[in-house]
């Protein structure tokens, strides 16, 4: 089948998509956007979290055809090509990136959390990110990163664009 959708603001057309393919597979293998990760491909780990019409979803659980005509946002679209989003910068500064395989999904989930909550409490952060597994960090520095990003994004001069 042919798939048409908008990814990170750019309209994409892909031909010869097999109906059984997931949105994750199409992003990674057909659109050259491997930033969304394939850690479990069964909706348990959150490493493939993307925006679908503004809502965070596991791209592995979305059939490619379900994305037809819709807006997809991935980690590659969080910031302009030469810049880092404050959430990305905060993950680096806090040391929240080790192997980094969970990072793209956590960045999208954190971006969504801060967009909705502004400055989430730790308890809110833990609930919001409970679907994103990380095996390296023990999550402490991810919490540090969320707090740091939320603080910076609340200060327009220090944080840059939302």
């Amino acid at each position, binding site marked *: 089948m042919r798939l048409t959708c908008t990814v990170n603001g750019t309209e994409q057309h892909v031909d010869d998509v097999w109906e059984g393919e997931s949105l994750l597979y199409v992003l990674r293998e057909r659109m050259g956007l491997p930033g969304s990760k394939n850690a*479990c491909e069964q909706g348990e780990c959150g490493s493939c979290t993307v925006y679908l019409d503004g809502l965070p979803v596991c791209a592995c659980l979305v059939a490619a055809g379900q994305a037809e005509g819709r807006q997809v946002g991935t980690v590659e679209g969080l910031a302009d090509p030469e810049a880092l989003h404050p959430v990305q910068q905060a993950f680096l*500064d806090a040391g929240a990136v080790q192997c980094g395989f969970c990072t793209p999904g956590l960045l999208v989930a954190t971006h969504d959390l801060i967009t909705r909550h502004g400055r989430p409490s730790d308890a809110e952060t833990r609930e919001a990110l409970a679907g994103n597994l990380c095996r390296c960090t023990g999550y402490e520095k991810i919490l540090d990163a969320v707090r740091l990003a939320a603080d910076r994004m609340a200060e327009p001069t220090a944080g840059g664009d939302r």
Partner: protein
Amino acid sequence: MSTPTRTPTGAPEHLTGPGSGGVGDDAQRPDGVLKVRGEFAYGSDLWMEDMLWGVTLRSPHPYARIRSIDTSAALATPGVSAVLTSDDVPGEKVYGLELADQPVLALDVVRYQGEPVALVAADHPETARLAAARIHVDYDVLEPVTDARTALGHPTWNQVHDSTAEVTELSRESAHLHPEGNLVRHLKVRTGDPAPTADVVVVGEYEVGMQDQAFLGPEAGLAVPAEDGGVELHVATQWLHVDQKQICSALALPPEQVRLTLAGVGGAFGGREDLSMHVHACLLALRTGRPVKMSYNREESFFGHVHRHPATMRYEHGATRDGELVYVKAAIYFDGGAYASSTPAVVGNGGTMGIGPYVVPNVHVDCYGAYTNNPPCGAMRGFGSVQTAFAYESQMDALAAELGMDPVELRCRNAMEEGSATPTGQVIDSPAPVAELLRRLEAMPLPAASGDGEVDLRDMPGGVSNTTHGEGVRRGVGYAVAYKNVAFSEGYDDHSTARVRLEVVGGEPTATVHTAAAEVGQGLVTVEQQIARTELGVERVVVHPKDTSVGSAGSTSASRQTYVTGGAVKAACAKVREQVVARAERLVGRTVPDLRLAGGAVVSDSEDITVPLADLLGDDVLEETLEWRHRPTEAIDPETGQGFAHVQYAFSAHRAVVDVDTELGLVKVVEMACTQDVGKAINPQAVVGQIQGGTAQGLGLAVMEEILIKDGKVRNPSFTDYLIPTILDMPPMRIEVLEYADPHAPYGLRGVGEAPNISSGPAVLAAIRAATGLPLTRVPVRPEHITGT
């Protein structure tokens, strides 16, 4: 709360400039920007025009004889380019890290569920999977052996391994294989009185379940056929050169024709030390003449790598009424599963360090590794020390209770210190602050009691499932301390290779560090940069891609890379620095004793000399390559276990605070606290990250993580059913990092990664015991163990 506390060390402080990104700084990782932008290329991200997808057909049976394999229907599937079986392996058909006993593709017998039987390459992964399902394998199913003691207790039963496995060059001398039986290794430690008596005796039997590394990045890589008839393999791994050696053997190709480059690694934790898809992808690429990508899904990943050995252990501790340990006797059984992997070395650790960081005059340990038809077990963070720590720390608590002593007091009274002898007769010749680690934990404030003020369901065991508002909830506090050898032991020639180049690029002095040391997420690439900055006084340091065009760095395991590859980089930098200083002295026409490199120049503190490297080097390139070794260890005596087996020990301790819903058996870990001596924190932020991550994996084993096996079959190969800690499961942590320099190690550093993974779980177990009053001798602790239902 996570800020490291530093105590003075003997490390050369003058080398470190404030915030220079050198040794001791929180330098940021060079791959960080790529990782947060989604542009870092992991093994599963690799892609080439015209590439094929490879998949593996695996055995559904834990033990069966193969009567025949029919691949015709698979080959006839449109889109399929190749179907391979063991007949298509051109070289040695078996491989292994320490003993070559594992078939590349099943020969006549499959010995575990998930053993690779055949391979398919096709133009789409789903096509390849469909074709693999059309391969007809005729199995004669046999009764599996699924228990280590059963395997060893029936000496006539020897069919798990009925062929003579060859000992490879990698084999450690101490690795005993009994080719006609199921014993992989039996390690004995004998010291002191063989028949000791004591005032107080405590006996316990303990069991540890099979843990999975559960790295998030699946086993993946891309094999590309080369014009010279060889192959280029880009793969996520822990040790490029040991992979290369095994691949060459299977492909019957020389190392020049099997070139490996490290792809991005999404975590490892020991699970990538053995081969997975490496040879398979190369075989398919060479057969089809096209690039072949293989990337496991999560279910296949559970079958595609070795796990942590499950263990059953019996311990007997004898002590005086004052709480002085008189003797320890222990029998430790590791279930190695179907193939040896690194079982001999795991037994080495389990046996030599199996009584914990305590001084005991009389020790009698028997540690066994056995073949069974369970999934193969091998390396996982903590490597043989995690299992025994649950047992010996449980014993210390039981002994304290029997003596009416405080558990921390009992541990401190018997704690190792510098100058103590281990049960293997090795005198600890660097700081061993075991008691201080515990005392510092004790001095930390405890978290507020649960139920203070309004109840927040999210703080309760069971969380927002709304299972309790505090009724039936009891709090417990537990302590544990552990130690772990750093680097490879028992006489292994453990070395690393570093190539360091210094040149002027675009007017700026630039160092390039080239090693084959696998970056798996821990931050070695950052450490390599930091060391080069400190040693060469330059800001810009490029980390060359990791590949086999430079000599082996050894494995990224055993907490060893910062020590061993860090040592190699430091030494190679020193040789480059000698060249630079000699040039500077030629320039000024005399010897200046205190010339050093700083700020991109050769400078002297005593004289007014500043020679910019840009001027001194011009277009010249200075390069040095060297192999570096830590001081040698030695094989232990096969009858007594005595010998200088380990080059360095790492020490850590944990305090766990838990709330337990005693009615439902649910556990909420409220806080974890950790103290660890790291000798010198090369990158304090990364050190803390290792402690936090290691703590989480230990907590996971204590309360939730287990590969469930029934009749040799894995029942939970998914993240739906194999649970690892989420951000809701991990509590806040208090961490104190101590820096007591090891005089034998570069910068005084101590390997960091494994120790906190060892002491955390036993502390959680102790805390649950304290909360419930139950003996709890098995991990992971499940609700039914607490409720007794």
